[in-house]
């Protein structure tokens, strides 16, 4: 007996011109781990939401076909009724945390499901321990890092003892080692797992079965081995990437930015950077690597001039632009074109920048009506349009599909070749660079 069945499922969001998912059929079995791959906007999140009952109950829209979880038709069962049997971890942990303290957050779902009061704290502690977050139990959720919050969200989902675990890019804020530990814990949960991921290497290593969606259609439903062959033939960009090596010969251009013995702390007594040096020349693409909390973002902000070092000095001989993490959240204008024109006040330049990231036809749309992937690209265009001589990018490939990531990398190398420089802080070990600098924290 299948745990979940999807039959000829087609779904169109309210006001959308075309369906997000089209004529999709599949079955999920108990305990299997399934990687869900596909480009941004291919319908992965919609499929996850349909299995949680959030589509159509929360979003509205036109629903055709059948989605059943444990023989319950999701059109009739509300998401709250499916909760427990199904648990979901969404992409952005900040958007799903309800309570002020970690242990209360994990207990929240158990309380909703009517768990016996004497079972709530033991199950809370056990699930926090299972994701390696027992030490966070009494911490305030507002004080946790993105990576810590993601672990708390997973603990909240696992505490419910779900049969089906739906994960929408759950490792997007974790460094590679933490992401591998995270996924290993999922594997050990015993639940059937449907895992949507853009960093395909980890997902493919974990999965028993692989689905590939494109433009709302299911192009592939195969075992991992079958999927690897199919991907090699049809979508090679999705194959597990090798760790990127350093690129070209060392650059000899003028130094654009130099940091000497830089120290920085957000809180007194808790240094993030301790005596870090950095040098970036014209023509270079340099990657900053390191685990969560090692100071990549801080050094990137120092290089861009958004922070000042406590000690040491940062000398920059050029204009700098900085693309923050999650740029799609920080949009200020009401038209995509105006958003990009904000930095330069020139709509023609803005239009060209929009076309560069494939958003030319959406110039008149409200930025918040764009999909999350489109918003990320809009944020990128809004920084790149000013053509700063030093471009600093913080996790530019988060939530970006492999083919788009390759396009960004190629664009960056071309940008640097024009006599400018780029500094990229990323967890993505496959992102190409001329040089890689690994931070280990203060």
């Amino acid at each position, binding site marked *: 007996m299948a745990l979940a069945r999807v039959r000829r499922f087609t779904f169109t969001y309210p006001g959308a011109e075309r369906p997000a998912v089209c004529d999709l059929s599949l079955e999920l079995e108990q305990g299997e781990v399934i990687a869900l791959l596909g480009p941004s906007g291919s319908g992965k999140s919609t499929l996850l939401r349909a299995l949680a009952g959030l589509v159509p109950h929360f979003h509205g829209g036109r629903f055709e076909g059948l989605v059943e979880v444990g023989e319950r038709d999701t059109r009739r069962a509300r998401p709250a*009724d499916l909760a427990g049997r199904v648990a979901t971890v969404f992409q952005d942990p900040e*958007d799903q945390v309800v309570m002020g303290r970690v242990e209360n957050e994990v207990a929240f*779902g158990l309380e909703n499901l009517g768990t016996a009061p004497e079972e709530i704290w033991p199950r809370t502690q056990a699930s926090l321990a299972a994701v390696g977050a027992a030490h966070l139990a009494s911490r305030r959720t507002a004080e946790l890092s993105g990576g810590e919050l993601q672990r708390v969200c997973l603990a909240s989902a696992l505490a419910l003892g779900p049969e089906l675990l739906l994960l929408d890019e759950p490792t997007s804020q974790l460094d590679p080692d933490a992401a591998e530990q995270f996924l290993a814990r999922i594997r050990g949960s015993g639940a059937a797992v449907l895992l949507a991921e853009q960093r395909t290497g980890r997902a493919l290593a974990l999965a028993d079965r692989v689905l590939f969606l494109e433009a709302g259609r299911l192009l592939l439903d195969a075992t991992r081995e079958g999927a690897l062959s199919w991907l090699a033939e049809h979508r090679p960009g999705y194959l597990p990437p090798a760790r990127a090596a350093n690129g070209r010969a060392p650059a000899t251009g003028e130094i654009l930015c130099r940091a000497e013995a830089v120290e920085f702390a957000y809180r007194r007594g808790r240094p993030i950077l301790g005596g870090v040096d950095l040098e970036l020349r014209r023509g270079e693409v340099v990657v900053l690597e390191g685990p969560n909390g090692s100071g990549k973002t801080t050094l990137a902000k120092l290089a861009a001039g958004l922070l000042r070092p406590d000690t040491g000095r940062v000398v920059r001989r050029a204009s700098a632009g900085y693309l*923050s993490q999650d740029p799609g959240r920080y949009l200020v204008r009401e038209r995509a074109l105006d958003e990009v024109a904000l930095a330069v006040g020139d709509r023609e330049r803005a239009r060209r920048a929009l076309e560069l990231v494939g958003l030319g036809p959406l110039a008149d749309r409200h930025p918040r009506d764009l999909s999350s992937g489109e918003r990320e690209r809009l944020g990128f265009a809004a920084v790149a349009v000013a053509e700063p001589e030093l471009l600093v990018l913080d996790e530019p490939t988060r939530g970006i599909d492999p083919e788009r990531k390759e396009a960004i990398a190629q664009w960056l190398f071309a940008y640097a070749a024009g006599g400018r420089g780029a500094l990229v802080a990323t967890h993505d070990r496959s992102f190409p660079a001329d040089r890689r600098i690994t931070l280990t924290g203060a």
Partner: protein
Amino acid sequence: MRLAAAPAAALLGATAATALLAERLAAVAVLATLLLVVCLRAPAQRRTPYLFGALSSGLGVFLLSPFLAAVGYHVLWSGPTVPVLGKLDVTEEELRIAALNGLRLTAVALAFTAYALLVDHDRLVAAAGFARRSALAVALATRLVPSLERDGAGLAEAVRGRGVPITGVRGRARLVPPLVAGSLERAASLAEAMEARGFGRAGHTRSPGAPLTRWDRLALVIAVVLVPLGALWL
């Protein structure tokens, strides 16, 4: 020693009420000092804006109100006559009242600071034991304040990162609409996540609170005794 949420909130509320009711300057000063010591247990980065607000508003009352009041006969300084305000003089009695009111305001603001930064709001609303949805709304509103702070800082940084300076009140005011729009989006996402976690389902339960310790019971006794003490003797 860490107090449970309800006794801690009761003690903070009683201390603030006592500071408002007490008439002796020294008594209010002691209460404000005790509250300041409690507030210093919060992380420095979070407590700084709260403490700045609490101390500067109390100081503001102390510095300004003697010029606006007309009480007492022991003149310490005699100033010019200003239209609307009248004669600007400062008396000994005005200074005493200004100090008392300044300390009262500081004590109340410090009590709120301790409540905001140190009390477990989740447990406090759970301890209410009724109106779970309303209590949860309060908990969510409390939790969303730091999210809003972070979003505001992130938005300003994103705009500065594009080379667009943010200057003056008008520059910051322009960020308010997108900040509100972002908060509404976040609220919608949160509602979706809550529904996916079974919120609104019939038959919910409550996680048991820890039993009250002797410190909790002592705090409750002090809270009950402190208010009449302040009203009658302090």
